[in-house]
């Protein structure tokens, strides 16, 4: 546990520090907010927003906003994001006043249910309108939670992406790589929550700690603003004499970076290193060199900071952003969708292009009037975003991958180039 007084130089710097407000939206968001509250986030404002009175009353957040109408009788939204959305719209002035005065608004939500998926886009818009930078940390439901929740989550994610400056998205399904057969459900959720919290903590440190090589608040803004796309983040820690190598290894094996693939796709990468007073330039150099090799196309922003408590340890926070120009690697697509992509390079696919070009209001009209159609659209959209063809590497499965400029050269060339054999 850390208090404000333990951070050297924290108070004099307070004036330069951006004001941060952290919002938890929906049941999962409120719970995660509580775990954050317990750690070192002194100086940030906390606010919990939910439609469910019970979940709010258990929360320890300083500000609690209960969205409620008589229709709900104090219960939740019943898993319907449209209700959550409507409620939030109704009380948008309350939300705005809650966001007032913040430079950065962090939104934490679990997408898929009614409250999280419905409220968070509206909240993001409200925060944006007050002039804050909006970063959303969201989880997507497990596949086993059912199709409907997946669709709702995807829809929520799309909406959030179109309003927030940056969305850092953690599909729960990816954490399956981190757990084994014996991990209990409770632990699993703790792990996914933990990952999200690590991400928030990483950003928090980035914004508040004095750095040797400072990452300015503007840098973060520049990285996430207007990319309107999901960012990948990772936070790793290593210690001992070989910590720089270990940190890089952990980073590249990180489930959220898809074994380094997210780095290859990224067009902007922010790396923040934090170590003790014994942090050497060689360490920094080694980490940056390795990361640089994986994402040669990307703009890299780096920062380094020293924390006396980190003696002998090294922590690396990495945020990779990519703009949503579709990648060429689409071998799993049928030829005609691939062709459609080539003709309209600025949009994800035929299904998304009308959606993303619409304004928020228009889109809401669309969803209200034709819920059936929009759901189908979301379904298609989900399909184009599936991890493209898990290519088995045959005899190179177990050997060290040959990575060149972020491309795995062990995968057949024709697959990587999307050449169809017909």
């Amino acid at each position: 546990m850390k208090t404000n007084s333990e951070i050297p130089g924290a108070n004099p710097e307070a004036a330069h520090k951006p004001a941060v407000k952290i919002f938890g939206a929906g049941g999962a968001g409120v719970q995660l907010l509580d775990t954050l509250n317990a750690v070192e986030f002194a100086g940030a404002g906390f606010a919990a927003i939910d439609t469910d009175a019970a979940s709010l009353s258990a929360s320890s957040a300083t500000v609690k906003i209960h969205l409620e109408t008589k229709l709900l009788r104090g219960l939740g939204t019943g898993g319907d994001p449209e209700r959550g959305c409507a409620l939030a719209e109704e009380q948008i002035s309350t939300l705005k006043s809650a966001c007032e005065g913040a430079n950065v608004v962090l939104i934490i939500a679990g997408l898929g249910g009614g409250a999280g998926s419905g409220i968070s886009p509206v909240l993001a818009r409200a925060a944006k309108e007050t002039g804050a930078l909006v970063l959303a940390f969201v989880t997507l439901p497990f596949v086993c939670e059912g199709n409907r929740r997946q669709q709702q989550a995807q829809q929520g994610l799309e909406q959030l992406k179109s309003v927030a400056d940056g969305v850092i998205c953690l599909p729960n399904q990816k954490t399956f790589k981190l757990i084994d057969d014996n991990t209990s459900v409770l632990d699993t959720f703790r792990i996914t929550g933990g990952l999200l919290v690590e991400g928030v903590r990483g950003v928090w440190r980035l914004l508040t700690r004095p750095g040797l090589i400072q990452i300015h608040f503007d840098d973060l803004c520049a990285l996430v603003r207007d990319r309107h796309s999901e960012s990948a983040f990772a936070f790793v820690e290593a210690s001992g004499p070989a910590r720089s190598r270990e940190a890089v290894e952990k980073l590249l094996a990180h489930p959220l970076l898809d074994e380094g693939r997210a780095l290859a796709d990224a067009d902007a990468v922010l790396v923040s290193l934090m170590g003790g007073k014994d942090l050497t330039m060689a360490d920094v150099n080694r980490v940056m060199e390795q990361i640089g090799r994986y994402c040669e196309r990307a703009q890299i922003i780096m920062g380094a900071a020293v924390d006396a408590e980190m003696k002998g340890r090294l922590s690396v926070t990495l945020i990779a952003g990519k703009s949503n120009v579709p990648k060429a690697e689409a071998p799993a697509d049928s030829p005609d969708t691939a062709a459609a992509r080539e003709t309209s390079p600025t949009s994800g696919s035929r299904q998304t292009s009308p959606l993303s070009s619409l304004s928020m209001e228009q889109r809401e009209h669309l969803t209200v009037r034709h819920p059936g159609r929009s759901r189908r659209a979301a379904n298609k959209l989900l399909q184009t975003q599936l991890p493209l063809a898990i290519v088995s590497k045959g005899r190179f499965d177990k050997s060290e991958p040959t990575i060149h400029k972020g491309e795995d050269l062990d995968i057949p060339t024709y697959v990587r180039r999307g050449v169809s054999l017909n």
Partner: protein
Amino acid sequence: MFDDSNIIVGLEIGTSKVCAVVGEQAADGALNIIGLGQSRSRGVRKGEIVDPKQAEEDVRNAIVEAESMAGAEISNVYLGVTGGHIRGFNNRGVHPVVSADREISDDDVQDVVKNAKAINLPAENSLIHAIRQHFFVDGQDGITNPVGMLGSRLEVDVHVVHGNTNRLQNAIRLVKGFQIQVNEIVFNGLAASLALLSSEQKELGALVIDIGGGTTDYVVYVGGVIKHTGVLAIGGDHVSNDLAYGLKVPLSRAEKLKLEHGSAVVGEAAQGRSVTFTNELGLPIKTISVGHLQRIMSLRLEEIFQLIEQDLEQVGLGDYLRAGVFLTGGGARVPHIAKLAEPVLQMPVSIGQTNSISGLKSALDQPEFAAAIGLVRFGSFKNRKRDGKSSLAQGIKGAISSLLRRS
């Protein structure tokens, strides 16, 4: 025992084969290949040993075969190394000439070379080669031997090849396990270039590409010296793997198809052609299109050349290679490969031929053996240098030490 000194053995532990070449050096320095042993390699991936047990067996077979063919006992070898961890770069060493008359002595030359070798390599890496390029005396360029010249400042450029120590040691330890001494480790790409290029071609500028089973090694000569080296951990194995994946056939079948129907460019005739496999009863089990096969191959091989081209572009050597490109290694056997490489590299491309070595015709004609033959060539250069110094003392010392080793 004294005869041993003119027997030179090159050993290459490759991804597709282990190969030992025995050469005999005549008094006038001419090389004659007298023995060749090879064995299918099973313990190597991408040029690096992944299964020491298997690799050991394969090396033993190759050495035994080479020994019986050459009728000589192999006591020391020049060992070829490769792998994606190997890197090359240029470095410069500086040394002030301190003698009163400002004449550059042998010691000055040795000192400057030593300075050039003192490089800041990553801790886990070690030096394989530091190859002299040119000397500079007071900034004057292009001096090959500065001894006896006057000057106050001597500089030398070296090309440094280095690799991961542990991975290099894996191969060395394996060979030492047979009580065979490793004289020196040699980068395979360098060895192949020694076997192929005449000094005239080195002077003109040439690129040697050795497309092996697991790696593609390349070396660039400009003005008679090595300017650039590189390793891509892609090779013939990748082609087979791509085919197995793309045509949905087992790897062994893909390997066979590659040899039977492979081509670096998609042939007109192949477009509509297909091949049908039959099972033991003569019933057809699968049909594959030769057009697809060649397309997959062509894309992979083209990519290898593209990567090399990009690399040369980056170091700015593309325009200096007037002798052109020489292909070797198993990959050079792919039909029409030169035709594929030419437009990508924008240089004349030919299949390399080993030169000024006599002996076993069967070994000299095969592009696969270029690296192993080059190892022998490398050894002969070293021998000649050593002979120049003090052959008798060296010979006696060698004989005694080999006696001690054997006992």
